[in-house]
């Protein structure tokens, strides 16, 4: 393998129902930063059907070039047609770095592509840096349930591939004055390439707000006690125009939905304000929320590890403190 042939940063721009996924915009922001540092170009690859009119969006968010594969068979994510198309693009464009969002589809596609082109893949990265001496990509990720961080390199194979967690990287401001090249990529696919058949697509939570996008989260843990007690958290969230989320324990207990789970095995969030109510602060939970701007912890146990990451800690009974906070908040709103 001639490593010097591989140049540029490539981002897999994931769409669902024609809608570009937020994590892909975040990756364009991060990819832009890496490309500038390496003095190279940022290419977005965009697979789908009837999506060409959206390719400009990827330029507005940082891409120098968008390679669009528009095909009926690529409308909905399927492993083999996507792998075949992406592998062909990788072999032709020979990128130095490839970033894929660590979604339920990105984590299906990236390993398959990595095995097909026989290169390394680092999963669920939370930080990417360029090594000043070697120009290698330093891919840092949590492991061991978030207990340790590991920095991974891929020294002798190309491309250097990484999936990246949603909600960790920062997207750029949308800028319509940004210029880029749109390339129509032709790919021949037949229904034989599908290998499996999608009988039905069910979207369950389209109407539900996404905790990843919330500016303010009121999160509950085991200390909330029971499902009904989440009502008071809902009230507080409502006053802040925020959303309710929960720790893994509350999801396992059936108190909140899995889509509301914050943590290593759930969603990574970084809201402006994070209330941790009755959450002890298991490492796997902290891994999903410690980047929040301001963290308030309310917990009976003064020794709870959540207080180590909280900006403001209240040792007390959340069932008393939260109603008092709601009352004070209403007062403050009246005064304002």
């Amino acid at each position, binding site marked *: 393998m001639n490593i010097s042939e591989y140049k540029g940063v490539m981002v897999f721009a994931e769409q669902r129902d024609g809608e570009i996924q937020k994590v892909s915009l975040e990756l364009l922001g991060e990819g832009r930063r890496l490309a500038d540092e390496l003095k190279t170009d940022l290419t977005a690859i965009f697979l789908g059907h009837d999506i060409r009119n959206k390719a400009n969006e990827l330029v507005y968010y940082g891409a120098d070039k968008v390679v669009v594969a528009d095909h009926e068979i690529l409308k909905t994510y399927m492993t083999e047609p996507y792998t075949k198309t992406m592998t062909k693009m990788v072999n032709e464009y020979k990128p130095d770095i490839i970033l894929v969002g660590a979604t339920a589809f990105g984590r299906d596609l990236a390993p398959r592509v990595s095995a097909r082109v026989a290169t390394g893949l680092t999963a669920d990265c939370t930080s990417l840096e360029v090594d000043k001496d070697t120009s290698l990509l330093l891919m840092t990720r949590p492991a061991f349930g978030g207990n*340790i961080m590991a920095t991974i390199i891929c020294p002798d194979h190309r491309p250097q591939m990484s999936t990246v967690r949603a909600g960790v990287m920062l997207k750029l401001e949308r800028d319509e004055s940004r210029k880029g090249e749109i390339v129509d990529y032709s790919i021949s696919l037949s229904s034989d390439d599908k290998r499996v058949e999608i009988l039905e697509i069910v979207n369950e939570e389209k109407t539900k707000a996404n905790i990843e996008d919330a500016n303010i989260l009121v999160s509950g843990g085991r200390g909330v006690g029971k499902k009904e007690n989440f009502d008071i958290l809902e009230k507080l969230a409502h006053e802040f125009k925020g959303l309710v989320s929960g720790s893994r324990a509350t999801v396992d207990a059936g108190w909140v939905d899995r889509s509301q789970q914050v943590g290593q095995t759930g969603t990574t969030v970084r809201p402006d304000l994070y209330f941790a109510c009755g959450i002890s602060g298991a490492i796997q939970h902290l891994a999903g929320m410690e980047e929040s701007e301001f963290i308030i912890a309310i917990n009976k146990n003064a020794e709870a590890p959540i207080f180590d990451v909280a900006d403001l800690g209240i040792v007390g009974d959340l069932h008393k403190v939260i109603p008092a906070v709601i009352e004070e908040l209403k007062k403050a709103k009246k005064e304002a």
Partner: protein
Amino acid sequence: MNIIVCIKQVPDTNEVRLDPKTGTLIREGVPSIINPDDKSGLEAALVLKDKIGAKVTVLTMGPPQADLALREALAMGADRAILLTDRAFAGSDTLATSSVLASAIREMDYDLIIAGRQAIDGDTAQVGPQIAEHLDIAQISYVEELELVDKALVIKRAFEGGYFKIKAQMPCLITTLTEMNTPRYMSVSGIFDAYREKEVEKWTSENITINKETIGLNGSPTKVKKSFTKGVKAAGKKYEVDHKEAAKIIIENLKEKYII
């Protein structure tokens, strides 16, 4: 029907604690378990065995002590257990691991291969899809439900905010989620069989056909440059006051931060 279930023995990461002073991992006393997603995959295989009499083989790559995980799988009802253990495999990343497992699978008959979606120690979710690629068969990951309908599999495949219903012909590989089922316990007679009647076959790199340059630390494209525990962030202020006072402090802080 031949089912191969790939399992991994992992430390129970829920039981791992950090030393608050040094910030290092406390590894002592952490129990080893069958990775939860894999255990649900095994349960799904055993359900098919109960229904149609499938033959279930469990396969793992690991150190000699992974024997324990395989014995547990046998005691739950698996028919055959294979432990791939060799110094040559040590240090394998996901791609090298998948090459070893795929080479072992090529030595057997199979209709369905099941792997857990991801292991709780590595959380990569890569080995399953990479095995499928090496074997050039279809993969369906994030499986929540599995049904056998007229020799085809009908599968509920989860994604963020929904699911696909997918029909797949065999041979294929699926990766399973813990949400799928509640794995059965080992039975007393199963435990007896697992230690007295059944055996765990030990395979080394001599039992499989594989390019030695693609396995172990040297055959792995990715390398760990360093690992570290996250620096402890300076803790903020902590108040132990009555709830009314606490509420006032919270609101004052939020005003200062211009959040309200």
